[in-house]
């Protein structure tokens, strides 16, 4: 079921277009090499701050869209929440950007035409459209559930309406769609469309709720986590979270190379940010799990 990782490349890309989408920014970058290797769910690591910057870590952004124009372009969506993303938001057409990608394990796609519900929280929905496109090409039915705190933070509602058989929107302040969270409406959507699988991306809290709903309905759920990363290529060991392996043992796995896509029920959402006592190698006894 898991797809094999592809070899990433480093590309100095040229910014083609920049646009502001409500509360978010979107950059389209000419990045040949990344585009032909892209599968839905991949992300890129973007160096920020220019050549003599004091910001040493790459910022990871899931790929929203790829197009074959100009030898291949990738588009990613981000919110400004620090000096690095503020610098990115200041990029203009024809500026250059240093990208590494595509990174991570992409979404596994079902072999048969099944009913899929795509759940996106905040700008996490950006990565879902490429998945939805691939699913529809396989004859799958796709329905969207998108939500955020307010209307300007729901990303891609228009596109979801165009692509999906149905689209349900939620905002916590009621400014768009239903008042509440995606997890409030998800059970109804799953029941209505007789969903076979759920694909989700968004903040950790959303993914935890979505997984709980999917587990209740006993259907598989694929989540793409947004854990903070420094390198994106698997060497810095900072983006770990507790995930249960095929052998039943919990390990602290890197969301950049073992993820960002996981089976939702395997991620121990309640223990994210901690080392569970029974994790492999946990202080005080976890190592007893070995052999």
């Amino acid at each position, binding site marked *: 079921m898991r797809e094999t990782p592809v*070899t*990433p490349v*480093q590309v100095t890309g040229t910014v083609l277009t920049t646009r502001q989408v409500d509360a978010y920014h979107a950059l389209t970058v000419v990045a040949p090499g990344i585009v032909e290797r892209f599968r839905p769910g991949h992300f890129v690591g973007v*160096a920020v701050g220019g050549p003599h910057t*004091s*910001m*040493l*870590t*790459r910022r990871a952004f899931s790929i929203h869209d790829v197009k074959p124009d100009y030898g291949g372009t990738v588009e990613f969506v981000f919110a400004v929440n620090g000096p*690095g993303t503020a610098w990115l938001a200041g990029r203009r057409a024809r500026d250059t950007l*240093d990208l*590494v990608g595509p990174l991570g394990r992409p979404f596994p796609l079902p072999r048969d035409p099944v009913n899929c519900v795509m759940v996106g929280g905040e700008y996490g929905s950006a990565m879902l459209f490429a998945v939805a496109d691939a699913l529809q090409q396989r004859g799958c039915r796709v329905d969207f559930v998108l939500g955020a705190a307010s209307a300007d933070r729901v990303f891609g509602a228009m596109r979801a309406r165009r692509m999906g058989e149905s689209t349900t929107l939620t905002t916590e302040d009621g400014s768009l769609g239903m008042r509440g969270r995606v997890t409030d409406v998800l059970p109804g959507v799953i029941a209505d469309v007789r969903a076979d699988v759920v694909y989700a991306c968004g903040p950790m809290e959303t993914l935890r709720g979505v997984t709980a709903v999917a587990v209740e309905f006993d259907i598989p759920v694929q989540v793409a986590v947004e*854990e*903070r990363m*420094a*390198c994106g*290529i*698997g*060497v*810095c*060991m*900072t*983006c*770990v*979270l507790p995930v249960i392996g095929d052998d039943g043992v919990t*390990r*602290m796995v890197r969301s950049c*190379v073992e993820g960002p896509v996981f089976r939702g029920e395997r991620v121990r959402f309640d223990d*994210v*940010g*901690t*080392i569970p006592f029974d*994790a*492999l*190698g*946990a*202080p005080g006894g*976890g*190592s007893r799990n*070995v*052999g």
Partner: protein
Amino acid sequence: MSVDMRTYLGHVELANPVVTAAGCAGSGAELAQFFDLGRIGALTTRSITMAPRAGRPTPRMAETPSGLLNAVGLQGPGVDAFLARELPWLAQRNIRTVVSIGGGTVAEYTALARRLNDAPGVTAVEVNLSCPNIEDRGRVFARDGAASAEVIASVRAVMRYDVPVVAKLSPDTADIVTVARACVDGGADALSMINNPLGMSIDTETMLPSLAAGTGGLSGPAVRPLAVRCVWQVRAALPTVPIIGMGGVLTGRDAFEFILAGACAVAVGTALFNDPYACLRILRELEELVAARGYTRLADVIGLAHRPPGATTRHRTDFEESSL
């Protein structure tokens, strides 16, 4: 004009002086996606421990001006999995491998060294002395010359004679030269410096420490002047001991600075997080810099900054022109 970039770690020859820093190159396979690891001097593994370690909780990393705070907590698979999977993978590809080891007691270091003894593909062993000493109220070995020397002596005693033992020193000590001298007296064949000094940052939004562990190791160009000072002092005190210099090397110029201060090899760490090709780029830039100064051997520029002010730099041609 090409430069002879070969360098020596004890009696072990490295094709060039650029190595990766411990804990910054994963298991090797991650970087091998980008370039042939055989083209760098050596790969240093993360610190291998006896048992698997899950490490510290997240967040483990915080970006600081020109630096990076990290508290990973030596997450790793343990020595069994390392010897079963990671080391053979490196050995099959003939990648020169410096194995870093970490432990909480002298006995644990010794046991690790014994396990590595029979394993093929160990170019050198780097002893990570910046681990808390369980038997001494969690005081870090590297703070104390005697504790460091005890670890080095016991590792040296069990390690095969042809595998150099490298002591990795921390700048968080009263006098790094004292610790360096103690390690060399204990049998260290080479020294590497510096390990991350401890730092801290506080998130003013949450009003809590940025790292789950509170404090963390500071790396990146922010620590480079500190690292160059350590290399300089130790080289001045122990001119015959090979030194692997590290701390915020981002460019060939930075590597050259360490070489001039007296390092015979330079490790690249944090730069790898930003640029997976950093090692090869730094190696190329370093070679160009050495060539631009008119030298044909790296060995001729090691520690050159220690010459008295005003002294002329001696080239190899000086020897050839001698009437003797």
